[in-house]
């Protein structure tokens, strides 16, 4: 008999609970609150059968667009053919974790606001733009010893 293509086909490992983490779910998953606009990661918890997303969405990240009693609406991009569709799914909170994808951005935003406020107080204009890492400065190689046979190489003949 050929393998089927049901909803949960090929999910034997991805939906299974990790080693020695089976059983009751820790309470923090239920205590977290999500607001519209937050980013969340979708990670299926195989112990809870209700409100499971389709296996495609396992590991995807999207923004919250709706909050209901026990579930959250997440908007995830899915490539269908030659275009990307914004898919809106509803997922129970057990299958969702807050995403850290924009954590660095939020921290930077906060820091920049503080820097700008401090600069304004001082009366100077600063740029809070991020600069890319430039080329590394030159340096002397200290204490490096070259085995004698390598000195025979033409490139190191100058040493």
């Amino acid at each position, binding site marked *: 008999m050929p393998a089927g293509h049901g909803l949960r086909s090929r999910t034997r490992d991805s939906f299974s609970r990790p080693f*020695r983490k089976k059983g*009751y779910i*820790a*309470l*923090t998953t239920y205590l977290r*609150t999500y*607001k519209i606009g937050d980013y969340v990661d979708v990670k299926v918890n195989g112990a809870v059968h209700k409100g499971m997303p389709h296996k495609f969405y396992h590991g995807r990240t999207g923004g919250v667009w709706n*909050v209901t009693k*026990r579930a959250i609406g997440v908007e995830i991009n899915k490539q269908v053919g030659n275009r990307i569709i914004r898919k809106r799914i509803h997922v129970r909170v057990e299958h969702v974790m807050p995403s850290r994808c924009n954590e660095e951005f939020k921290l930077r935003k906060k820091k920049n606001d503080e820097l700008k406020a401090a600069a304004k107080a001082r009366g100077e204009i600063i740029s809070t733009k991020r600069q890319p890492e430039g080329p590394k400065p030159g340096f002397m190689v200290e204490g490096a010893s070259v085995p004698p046979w390598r000195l025979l190489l033409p490139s190191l003949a100058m040493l």
Partner: protein
Amino acid sequence: MAFVKTQKTKAYFKRYQVKFKRRRQGKTDYRARIRLINQDKNKYNTPKYRFVVRFTNKDIVAQIISATIAGDIVMASAYAHELPRYGLEVGLTNYAAAYCTGLLLARRVLKKLEMDGEYEGQVEATGEDYQVEPSETRRPFRALLDVGLIRTTTGNRVFGALKGALDGGLDIPHSDKRFAGFSKDGKQLEAEVHRKYIFGGHVANYMRQVEEDEPEKYQTHFSEYIKKGIDADSMEALYKKVHAAIRAEPSPVKSTKQPPKEHKRYNLKKLTYEERRAKLLERLNALNSSGGADDDDDDE
């Protein structure tokens, strides 16, 4: 030593998954806890309060608790060992005392939230099922009963505490099926019987019976009652007075004891490597010197 096949191999330990700590300690029922704490996501950070009742061998703990990720926060608490302040000094873990503790907690919470004028609850305890009526301005304080790990049988003292909190003015969803005095045959709560329990009538009856049948047992079993001058007939009046005192002054009294400057140590302090080595050397030397001085082993 006979060879015994090891039951718990290394593989067993490698694969063993420990239960949650509080489950290992046998203190928390996580199945119930998940369902009690889970708040609707579209209510965001609105706290969901649990009315927690726990019984120890000599005390009753009643608390209003809300859960956060950092830990549970106790909003108000009442203990049976506070009841001597209101005039009840014996029988601190019976049904009547549970009623008093629940009542004390309810009045305390309402006073803290300044709702005690609005929600008097049922001042005269009649034992019949009473549900708080929402007043015009504010909705009543809602909490969910958390019994913990006890078996919810009819007439359990937890429901005594529940009744106390209800009469105190809290809004706790419940049914009267488990109150003392609910008859399975009649399928309804007999308010008279429940009222008897609330005022310690069951204890009074037992006191009368034992006093008649076995006076010596009465002297030993109810010695504290006798010392305080409480007898079977004065119980109801005593509890009435306690209820009134609770309603008059529910606020908690902060204890004036200073916390001890040095924290008392309850477990042995871990020895350092040098200390352990020194101890071992001492032991070995003592062994060798007592068992004959053949080999003085100074090595561990």
